[in-house]
C-alpha cells in the first residue's frame, strides 16, 4: 500500500511543513507539546471550544486530507489512551462532587474511539471505522488492519492515523511509574543523557493509504510486531521480515530507531543496529517529538518525506548521500512491545 498524502500536528513545525526546509523547535523539560495550528476553516469555533485536545489535533490533521474526497473507504485510528484530559476531567468531577449530577460531554469524549467517530461524522463517512488501543503497537495494528482491507478488496483508499495527547492524567501517573527523567534535559542532549527515564510527547499523524498509485510518497512494504521477546527473537523477526521481502540487511539504505534517551532500554536499539545494520547511519525521532505509545507513526511520517526525496533538509536526519530505496523503522515501548515497519520507494 502507498502513502499518497499526509498531514501531521507534532511538537515540530510539521503542519506548515517548514520542518522540511530546516526549521525546527528545541524543547526542554519533560513535556514536548504540539504546536497547534489555526483551525479556522477546519473546525467551527463553537465546536472547537467543546473539543478535547486529542480530538482537536486529530481532526486538524485528518479533515484536510479527507474533506474534499468521496472515496475514503475506511477510517482507522491508533490511540493508546484517547482523550485523557477528558477522562481526568470527568473522573475529577465524579470524585470532587461525590457522584452528583454530571454533564456527559467529557465522558463521551474520553473514549478513544471519539476521534474516529468525529472524523466520520464531520466527513459524513459511513464506511469501516475502528480504533486500535494496543498501547505501543496500536499503530502497527492499524496498518495491519488497513493492509487486510486492501487485500480483501474491501477498500482502495484509507485514512490511517494516530493521536496521543499529554495530559495531567497520563503524565502524573507515568511520573509515579518512573517513566520520566528527574533531571532536566533538552531535545538537543536527550539521547546522550545516559540516565533513566525519558520525556513525554504527543501528536497526530494522518496518512492516506491507497491500494495502488503512481504518485506517492512511499510504499509500506512490511509491518511486524512482537511482545516481550528476547533479543534473539527480535533479531530473527527482523531477518525474516527482510527475507520475506527479498532483501538483505545491506539493501536497507537507512534506519530510523526509537531511541528515547532512557538508559534502561536503549540497549535494544544499540544491539539491533550493531548486529544487523553495522554500516547504516542511524536516525532518531523521539528527540524531536518525545516518547508516546503510537509515536512510530511519526517515524513513518519522516520516512515518507525522506523516501520521496522531498525531505532532504530534515533536522537530525543523516542521509547516506544516495537515493533511499528501502528504509526500516524499529521502535519499542518500554521494552515490552516492539514494532518494525519497512518502507520502500
Amino acid at each position, binding site marked *: 500500500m502507498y502513502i499518497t498524502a499526509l498531514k501531521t500536528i507534532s511538537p515540530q513545525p510539521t503542519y506548515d511543513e517548514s520542518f522540511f526546509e530546516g526549521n525546527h523547535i528545541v524543547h526542554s523539560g519533560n513535556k514536548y507539546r504540539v504546536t497547534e495550528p489555526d483551525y479556522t476553516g477546519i473546525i467551527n469555533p463553537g465546536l472547537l471550544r467543546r473539543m478535547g485536545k486529542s480530538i482537536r489535533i486529530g481532526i486538524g490533521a485528518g479533515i484536510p486530507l479527507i474533506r474534499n474526497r468521496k472515496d475514503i473507504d475506511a477510517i482507522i485510528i491508533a490511540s493508546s489512551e484517547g482523550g485523557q484530559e477528558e477522562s481526568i476531567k470527568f473522573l475529577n468531577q465524579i470524585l470532587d462532587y461525590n457522584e452528583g449530577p454530571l454533564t456527559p460531554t467529557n465522558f463521551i469524549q474520553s473514549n478513544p474511539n471519539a476521534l474516529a467517530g468525529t472524523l466520520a461524522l464531520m466527513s459524513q*463517512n459511513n464506511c469501516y471505522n475502528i480504533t486500535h488501543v494496543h498501547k505501543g503497537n496500536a499503530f502497527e495494528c492499524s496498518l495491519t488492519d488497513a493492509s487486510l482491507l486492501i487485500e480483501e478488496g474491501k477498500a482502495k483508499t484509507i485514512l490511517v492515523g494516530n493521536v496521543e495527547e499529554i495530559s495531567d492524567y497520563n503524565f502524573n501517573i507515568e511520573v509515579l511509574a518512573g517513566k520520566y527523567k528527574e533531571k532536566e534535559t533538552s531535545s538537543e542532549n536527550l539521547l546522550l543523557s545516559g540516565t533513566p527515564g525519558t520525556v513525554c510527547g504527543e501528536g497526530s499523524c494522518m496518512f492516506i493509504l491507497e491500494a495502488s498509485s503512481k504518485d506517492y510518497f512511499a510504499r509500506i512494504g512490511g509491518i511486524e510486531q512482537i511482545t516481550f521477546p528476547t533479543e534473539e527473537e527480535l533479531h530473527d523477526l527482523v531477518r525474516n521480515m527482510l527475507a520475506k521481502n527479498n532483501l538483505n540487511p545491506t539493501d536497507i539504505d537507512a534506519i530510523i530507531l526509537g531511541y528515547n534517551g532512557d538508559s534502561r532500554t536503549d540497549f535494544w536499539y544499540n544491539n539491533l543496529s550493531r548486529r544487523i545494520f553495522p554500516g547504516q547511519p542511524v536516525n532518531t525521532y523521539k528527540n524531536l517529538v518525545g516518547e508516546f505509545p503510537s509515536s512510530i507513526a511519526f517515524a513513518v511520517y519522516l520516512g515518507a518525506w525522506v523516501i520521496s526525496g522531498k525531505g532532504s533538509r530534515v533536522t537530525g536526519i543523516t542521509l547516506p548521500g544516495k537515493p533511499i530505496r528501502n528504509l526500516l523503522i524499529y521502535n519499542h515501548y518500554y521494552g515490552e512491545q516492539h514494532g518494525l515497519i519497512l518502507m520502500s520507494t
Partner: protein
Amino acid sequence: MKVFITGFGCISPIGINFPENLKSLQSEKDGLGKSHFLNSLYASKKYFGEVKVDTPQLQKELLFENVEGLTRTDLLAFTAFREAVKNAGLTHDEISSADTAFISASTVGGMCNTDDIYKDANFKSTSNEFVNSYPYSRHTLRIVSLYGLKGFTDTINTACSSSSNALMMGMRLIQSGRIKRAIVGGAESLAKFTVNGFNSLQILAEDKCKPFDCSRDGLNLGEGAAYLVMEAEDVCSGKEHWGRITGSGNSNDAFHTSTLSDNATGVIKCMQLALSDAHISAGQVNYINAHGTGTQNNDQVELTGFSSIFPVIPPFSSTKSYTGHTLAASGAIEAVFCLLSMKYNELYPSLNVANPLEGCGSSLVRKYTTGIEVNYIMSNAYGFGGNCTSLIFSKY
C-alpha cells in the same frame, strides 16, 4: 479459508463458566440486581449485571493471590481466557506459537479502579501498585506475558462494539493466511467511572432492563469477559467445534456521538455487509442476537434496521436482559450465547417483555425455545461514536 470456533470461555453475571451461563440461559434466570461489590453511590440504587464473585476471590481462584496490581478487568479476562484455551484443547506450544494471534477489547480497562486512578492522576498518592494497570490494553499485555504469546496481539476499543470487532479482526487475519489461530474477545468490569458516565447520559434503567418493550427505560450496566478460540480449517480438522464465523460488517452511523440515526444508516449498512461477506441472503438467517440495550433510541433504530433488511424478520432477542450491557465484553459474550444456541438448536429469550415494541410481531423471542434448526445467526453491536458491527455465525 474456513474459520472454526473450537472453544470458548465466558464469565458473566449469569455464570462463572460457560456451562453455568448455558444453564441460566435455559432456565430464563437473569443476573441483574443491586451491586454488592461496586464502590459507588449508585450500587444500591440501580440494577447491574454483576459477576457474583468478589475481586479477592477471583484472584484466589486464579492462584494469583500474591500478584500486585491486578484489576477486576484483568481477573475477569484471565478467568475467561483460561477456560477458552482449555475448552479448545490448545497446547502451550499452540498458544505461544507465532501463528496464534490474541485480540482483546475493553472500554474501561484498569479505570475500574476509579478511586486509585483519581489519586494517582492528581498526585494525591506517592506510589500505588496500580500505576501500570490503567491502560485499556493492560489486561491484554498481562495475558500475553503470562502465556508467552509471540504472535500478533491487539486491543480494540470502539466502545460497545469493541469485542465484536476483535472477533472480526481475528477472522480476517486467519482468512488472509497470516495466522492459523486467534484467541479473541473482551473484558469489562463495572466501575464508578462508567456508571457515572452512563448515568450522566440518563440512560440507566430504574429497574431490570426491558429490551424491545414499549415501556423500556434504559440499560443495566454489566460486566464480564469472554474469549473464543478460532482456528483455520487446516489446523483443526477432526477437532470438535462449535460452528464457524463466516462474515463481518463494520460501518459508522456518522450521525451523533451517543445516539443512532432514526433511519438506521449504520445499522443497516453493517448488517448488509455482514450478509454479503458471509455469502448468505437475509432469508437464511435463523436468529438475530440483537444489540438490544433497552434504551429508547437503540431498540427502535435496530428494529427499523431489521424491517428494512429482512422481508420477514427472523426470531430475535436481546440476551442483555440476562447480563445487562457488558460494554466491550458484550460482543464476545453474546457470540458464545449464539454458538450455544446453534449447537443445541434452541433460542434464549428477551426477558421482561410485557408489551413488545410495535413491529416486533411474533419474531421477538420471549420464551426459551427448543427444537428449532439454527444454522445461521447474526449478532449485532453498536457503540458510541457511531461504531456498528454485525457478525455471522454458521453451523456448517
